[in-house]
Protein backbone atom coordinates (compact mmCIF):
# COMPACT_ATOMS: atom_id res chain seq x y z
CA UNK A 1 0.00 0.00 0.00
CA UNK A 2 1.21 3.47 -0.78
CA UNK A 3 2.58 5.34 2.15
CA UNK A 4 0.03 7.82 3.43
CA UNK A 5 0.89 10.86 5.42
CA UNK A 6 0.75 14.59 5.67
CA UNK A 7 3.33 16.85 4.12
CA UNK A 8 4.24 20.14 5.72
CA UNK A 9 2.85 22.93 3.55
CA UNK A 10 3.31 26.66 3.96
CA UNK A 11 0.23 28.68 4.86
CA UNK A 12 1.63 31.43 2.66
CA UNK A 13 1.46 29.67 -0.72
CA UNK A 14 -0.27 32.61 -2.41
CA UNK A 15 1.82 35.32 -0.80
CA UNK A 16 4.27 37.74 -2.27
CA UNK A 17 6.31 39.67 0.29
CA UNK A 18 5.66 43.43 0.35
CA UNK A 19 8.59 45.81 0.66
CA UNK A 20 8.55 49.47 -0.21
CA UNK A 21 9.49 52.62 1.67
CA UNK A 22 5.99 52.82 3.25
CA UNK A 23 5.43 49.25 4.28
CA UNK A 24 6.99 45.83 4.56
CA UNK A 25 4.96 42.68 5.17
CA UNK A 26 6.70 39.43 6.07
CA UNK A 27 5.40 35.97 6.82
CA UNK A 28 7.24 34.65 9.87
CA UNK A 29 7.46 31.01 8.95
CA UNK A 30 10.23 29.86 11.27
CA UNK A 31 8.43 30.06 14.61
CA UNK A 32 7.51 27.61 17.32
CA UNK A 33 4.48 28.67 19.35
CA UNK A 34 2.59 27.37 22.34
CA UNK A 35 -0.33 28.69 24.31
CA UNK A 36 -0.61 27.93 27.99
CA UNK A 37 -2.93 28.59 30.90
CA UNK A 38 -2.15 28.45 34.60
CA UNK A 39 -3.53 25.40 36.41
CA UNK A 40 -6.16 26.23 39.01
CA UNK A 41 -4.60 28.15 41.88
CA UNK A 42 -1.10 27.85 40.37
CA UNK A 43 -0.59 31.21 38.68
CA UNK A 44 2.01 32.40 41.21
CA UNK A 45 3.98 29.16 41.04
CA UNK A 46 3.78 29.23 37.23
CA UNK A 47 5.08 32.79 37.21
CA UNK A 48 7.99 31.73 39.45
CA UNK A 49 8.81 28.87 37.05
CA UNK A 50 8.79 31.28 34.08
CA UNK A 51 10.96 33.72 36.00
CA UNK A 52 13.46 30.96 36.87
CA UNK A 53 13.66 29.65 33.29
CA UNK A 54 13.28 32.83 31.22
CA UNK A 55 14.04 35.72 33.59
CA UNK A 56 10.75 37.62 33.20
CA UNK A 57 7.34 37.86 34.84
CA UNK A 58 4.33 36.79 32.79
CA UNK A 59 2.32 39.81 31.63
CA UNK A 60 -0.85 40.36 33.68
CA UNK A 61 -2.24 43.00 31.29
CA UNK A 62 -2.52 42.96 27.47
CA UNK A 63 1.18 43.22 26.66
CA UNK A 64 4.21 41.33 25.42
CA UNK A 65 7.51 40.71 27.20
CA UNK A 66 10.73 39.29 25.82
CA UNK A 67 12.29 36.71 28.06
CA UNK A 68 15.71 35.09 27.98
CA UNK A 69 16.38 32.10 25.70
CA UNK A 70 14.67 33.95 22.84
CA UNK A 71 11.07 33.45 24.04
CA UNK A 72 8.46 36.22 23.94
CA UNK A 73 5.34 35.93 26.11
CA UNK A 74 2.13 37.57 24.90
CA UNK A 75 -0.90 38.00 27.18
CA UNK A 76 -3.75 35.98 25.66
CA UNK A 77 -6.58 36.38 28.18
CA UNK A 78 -6.83 36.13 31.96
CA UNK A 79 -4.15 33.69 33.17
CA UNK A 80 -3.40 32.66 29.57
CA UNK A 81 -0.43 33.36 27.32
CA UNK A 82 0.94 32.75 23.85
CA UNK A 83 4.69 32.13 23.68
CA UNK A 84 6.68 32.62 20.48
CA UNK A 85 10.27 31.65 19.65
CA UNK A 86 12.40 30.77 16.64
CA UNK A 87 12.11 27.10 15.70
CA UNK A 88 15.83 26.66 14.95
CA UNK A 89 17.63 23.41 15.94
CA UNK A 90 14.31 21.61 16.24
CA UNK A 91 13.14 23.75 19.12
CA UNK A 92 9.56 22.95 20.16
CA UNK A 93 8.01 25.20 22.83
CA UNK A 94 5.23 22.75 23.67
CA UNK A 95 7.72 20.05 24.69
CA UNK A 96 9.98 22.58 26.39
CA UNK A 97 7.14 24.07 28.48
CA UNK A 98 5.61 20.73 29.44
CA UNK A 99 9.01 19.76 30.85
CA UNK A 100 9.63 23.14 32.51
CA UNK A 101 6.15 23.82 33.94
CA UNK A 102 4.95 20.27 34.67
CA UNK A 103 1.53 20.39 36.37
CA UNK A 104 1.57 24.18 36.81
CA UNK A 105 0.12 24.84 33.34
CA UNK A 106 -1.86 23.36 30.47
CA UNK A 107 0.23 23.72 27.32
CA UNK A 108 -1.01 23.45 23.73
CA UNK A 109 1.11 23.61 20.58
CA UNK A 110 0.13 26.45 18.22
CA UNK A 111 3.00 26.21 15.72
CA UNK A 112 0.80 24.80 12.95
CA UNK A 113 -2.49 26.31 14.11
CA UNK A 114 -1.48 29.92 13.99
CA UNK A 115 0.76 32.00 11.78
CA UNK A 116 2.45 35.30 12.47
CA UNK A 117 2.62 38.18 10.01
CA UNK A 118 4.98 41.09 10.57
CA UNK A 119 3.84 44.49 9.31
CA UNK A 120 6.34 47.32 9.54
CA UNK A 121 7.08 50.78 8.20
CA UNK A 122 5.88 54.40 8.32
CA UNK A 123 2.39 53.46 7.01
CA UNK A 124 1.90 50.27 9.04
CA UNK A 125 -0.29 52.01 11.62
CA UNK A 126 -2.62 53.55 9.01
CA UNK A 127 -2.95 50.26 7.15
CA UNK A 128 -3.85 48.26 10.27
CA UNK A 129 -6.19 50.98 11.54
CA UNK A 130 -8.43 50.40 8.52
CA UNK A 131 -9.58 47.04 9.88
CA UNK A 132 -8.69 46.94 13.57
CA UNK A 133 -11.22 48.62 15.89
CA UNK A 134 -8.61 49.82 18.39
CA UNK A 135 -6.84 53.09 19.00
CA UNK A 136 -3.38 52.38 17.58
CA UNK A 137 -2.11 55.94 18.09
CA UNK A 138 1.34 55.96 19.63
CA UNK A 139 -0.01 57.46 22.84
CA UNK A 140 -2.48 54.58 23.24
CA UNK A 141 -0.70 51.52 21.79
CA UNK A 142 3.08 51.28 22.10
CA UNK A 143 5.97 48.87 21.71
CA UNK A 144 5.17 46.11 24.20
CA UNK A 145 1.40 46.62 23.94
CA UNK A 146 -0.73 43.65 22.88
CA UNK A 147 -4.43 43.07 22.24
CA UNK A 148 -6.84 40.32 21.31
CA UNK A 149 -9.27 41.71 18.77
CA UNK A 150 -10.23 41.30 15.13
CA UNK A 151 -8.82 42.60 11.86
CA UNK A 152 -11.40 42.83 9.11
CA UNK A 153 -13.54 40.34 11.12
CA UNK A 154 -10.66 37.86 11.45
CA UNK A 155 -9.70 37.05 15.03
CA UNK A 156 -6.15 38.12 15.83
CA UNK A 157 -3.67 38.62 18.60
CA UNK A 158 -1.80 41.83 17.85
CA UNK A 159 1.35 43.21 19.41
CA UNK A 160 3.73 46.05 18.70
CA UNK A 161 7.50 45.44 18.54
CA UNK A 162 9.02 48.87 17.97
CA UNK A 163 8.14 52.43 16.96
CA UNK A 164 9.02 52.23 13.24
CA UNK A 165 6.27 51.05 13.89
CA UNK A 166 6.49 47.27 13.62
CA UNK A 167 3.51 45.11 14.51
CA UNK A 168 2.97 41.38 14.52
CA UNK A 169 -0.38 39.70 14.09
CA UNK A 170 -1.05 36.06 15.03
CA UNK A 171 -4.05 34.50 13.31
CA UNK A 172 -5.38 31.04 12.50
CA UNK A 173 -3.47 29.79 9.47
CA UNK A 174 -6.49 29.08 7.27
CA UNK A 175 -7.41 32.78 7.41
CA UNK A 176 -4.11 33.88 5.89
CA UNK A 177 -5.45 34.42 2.36
CA UNK A 178 -8.43 36.47 3.59
CA UNK A 179 -6.16 38.49 5.82
CA UNK A 180 -3.72 39.14 2.97
CA UNK A 181 -6.57 40.20 0.70
CA UNK A 182 -7.72 42.81 3.21
CA UNK A 183 -4.19 43.92 4.11
CA UNK A 184 -3.08 44.46 0.52
CA UNK A 185 -6.31 46.28 -0.37
CA UNK A 186 -5.77 48.53 2.64
CA UNK A 187 -2.17 49.17 1.60
CA UNK A 188 -2.97 49.95 -2.05
CA UNK A 189 -2.93 53.71 -1.52
CA UNK A 190 0.64 53.43 -0.21
CA UNK A 191 1.96 51.91 -3.42
CA UNK A 192 1.50 48.25 -2.58
CA UNK A 193 0.33 46.16 -5.50
CA UNK A 194 -2.30 43.50 -4.92
CA UNK A 195 -0.79 40.02 -5.29
Amino acid at each position, binding site marked *: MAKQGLTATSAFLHWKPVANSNLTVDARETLTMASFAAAKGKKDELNAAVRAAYGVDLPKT*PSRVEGQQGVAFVW*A*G*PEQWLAVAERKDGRDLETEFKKTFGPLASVVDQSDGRVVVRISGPRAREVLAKGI*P*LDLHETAFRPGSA*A*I*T*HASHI*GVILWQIDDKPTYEVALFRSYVDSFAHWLLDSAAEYGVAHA
Partner: protein
Amino acid sequence: MRIACPYCGERSLDEFLYSGDATVKRPDFASPTATEEFVSYVYERTNPPGMHRELWYHAAGCHAWLVVTRGVATHQITSVEAAREVALKEKSATKDTK
Protein backbone atom coordinates in the same frame (compact mmCIF):
# COMPACT_ATOMS: atom_id res chain seq x y z
CA MET B 1 -22.22 51.26 22.63
CA ARG B 2 -18.84 50.39 24.10
CA ILE B 3 -18.08 48.00 26.95
CA ALA B 4 -15.05 48.40 29.21
CA CYS B 5 -13.78 44.82 29.54
CA PRO B 6 -11.95 44.56 32.89
CA TYR B 7 -9.19 42.63 31.11
CA CYS B 8 -8.93 44.26 27.66
CA GLY B 9 -10.10 47.82 28.21
CA GLU B 10 -12.88 49.65 26.37
CA ARG B 11 -14.01 47.83 23.23
CA SER B 12 -16.65 48.21 20.57
CA LEU B 13 -19.96 46.35 20.88
CA ASP B 14 -19.17 44.14 17.87
CA GLU B 15 -16.55 42.25 19.91
CA PHE B 16 -19.20 41.05 22.40
CA LEU B 17 -22.15 38.66 22.46
CA TYR B 18 -25.14 39.29 24.67
CA SER B 19 -25.88 36.18 26.72
CA GLY B 20 -28.95 37.00 28.79
CA ASP B 21 -30.06 37.84 32.29
CA ALA B 22 -27.25 37.58 34.85
CA THR B 23 -29.58 37.41 37.85
CA VAL B 24 -31.41 34.13 37.23
CA LYS B 25 -30.06 31.08 39.05
CA ARG B 26 -30.26 27.53 37.76
CA PRO B 27 -32.83 25.68 39.91
CA ASP B 28 -32.16 22.46 41.77
CA PHE B 29 -33.33 19.63 39.50
CA ALA B 30 -34.23 17.55 42.55
CA SER B 31 -36.73 20.11 43.83
CA PRO B 32 -40.34 18.85 43.85
CA THR B 33 -41.35 21.92 41.81
CA ALA B 34 -38.36 21.66 39.46
CA THR B 35 -40.49 21.76 36.27
CA GLU B 36 -42.13 25.08 37.18
CA GLU B 37 -38.80 26.49 38.39
CA PHE B 38 -37.04 25.55 35.14
CA VAL B 39 -39.82 27.09 33.01
CA SER B 40 -39.37 30.29 34.96
CA TYR B 41 -35.55 30.07 34.75
CA VAL B 42 -35.50 29.53 31.00
CA TYR B 43 -38.47 31.57 29.72
CA GLU B 44 -40.01 34.03 32.15
CA ARG B 45 -38.65 37.57 31.95
CA THR B 46 -40.39 40.75 33.05
CA ASN B 47 -38.20 43.10 30.95
CA PRO B 48 -38.65 46.24 33.06
CA PRO B 49 -37.20 49.57 31.90
CA GLY B 50 -34.15 50.80 33.78
CA MET B 51 -31.01 49.01 34.91
CA HIS B 52 -30.44 45.33 34.08
CA ARG B 53 -27.66 42.98 35.08
CA GLU B 54 -26.66 41.13 31.93
CA LEU B 55 -24.15 38.50 30.86
CA TRP B 56 -21.92 39.49 27.98
CA TYR B 57 -19.20 37.35 26.41
CA HIS B 58 -16.03 38.98 25.02
CA ALA B 59 -16.10 36.70 21.97
CA ALA B 60 -13.65 38.57 19.73
CA GLY B 61 -11.37 39.50 22.63
CA CYS B 62 -10.22 37.70 25.75
CA HIS B 63 -13.19 35.26 25.84
CA ALA B 64 -14.12 36.28 29.37
CA TRP B 65 -17.74 36.25 30.57
CA LEU B 66 -18.77 39.59 32.02
CA VAL B 67 -21.62 40.89 34.18
CA VAL B 68 -22.64 44.26 32.76
CA THR B 69 -25.05 46.61 34.57
CA ARG B 70 -26.79 48.53 31.80
CA GLY B 71 -29.77 50.84 31.44
CA VAL B 72 -31.86 49.29 28.67
CA ALA B 73 -33.50 52.60 27.79
CA THR B 74 -30.31 54.70 27.75
CA HIS B 75 -27.50 52.13 27.16
CA GLN B 76 -25.73 53.74 30.11
CA ILE B 77 -23.34 51.20 31.63
CA THR B 78 -22.63 51.66 35.33
CA SER B 79 -20.45 48.61 35.99
CA VAL B 80 -18.63 45.79 34.22
CA GLU B 81 -17.36 42.89 36.30
CA ALA B 82 -15.73 39.59 35.41
CA ALA B 83 -18.46 36.95 35.87
CA ARG B 84 -15.85 34.71 37.49
CA GLU B 85 -15.24 37.30 40.22
CA VAL B 86 -18.99 37.80 40.74
CA ALA B 87 -19.51 34.03 41.12
CA LEU B 88 -16.57 33.67 43.53
CA LYS B 89 -17.90 36.57 45.62
CA GLU B 90 -21.37 35.00 45.79
CA LYS B 91 -19.86 31.66 46.70
CA SER B 92 -17.86 33.08 49.59
CA ALA B 93 -20.92 35.10 50.75
CA THR B 94 -23.11 31.99 50.94
CA LYS B 95 -20.31 30.15 52.74
CA ASP B 96 -20.20 32.93 55.34
CA THR B 97 -23.92 32.70 56.09
CA LYS B 98 -23.83 28.90 56.53
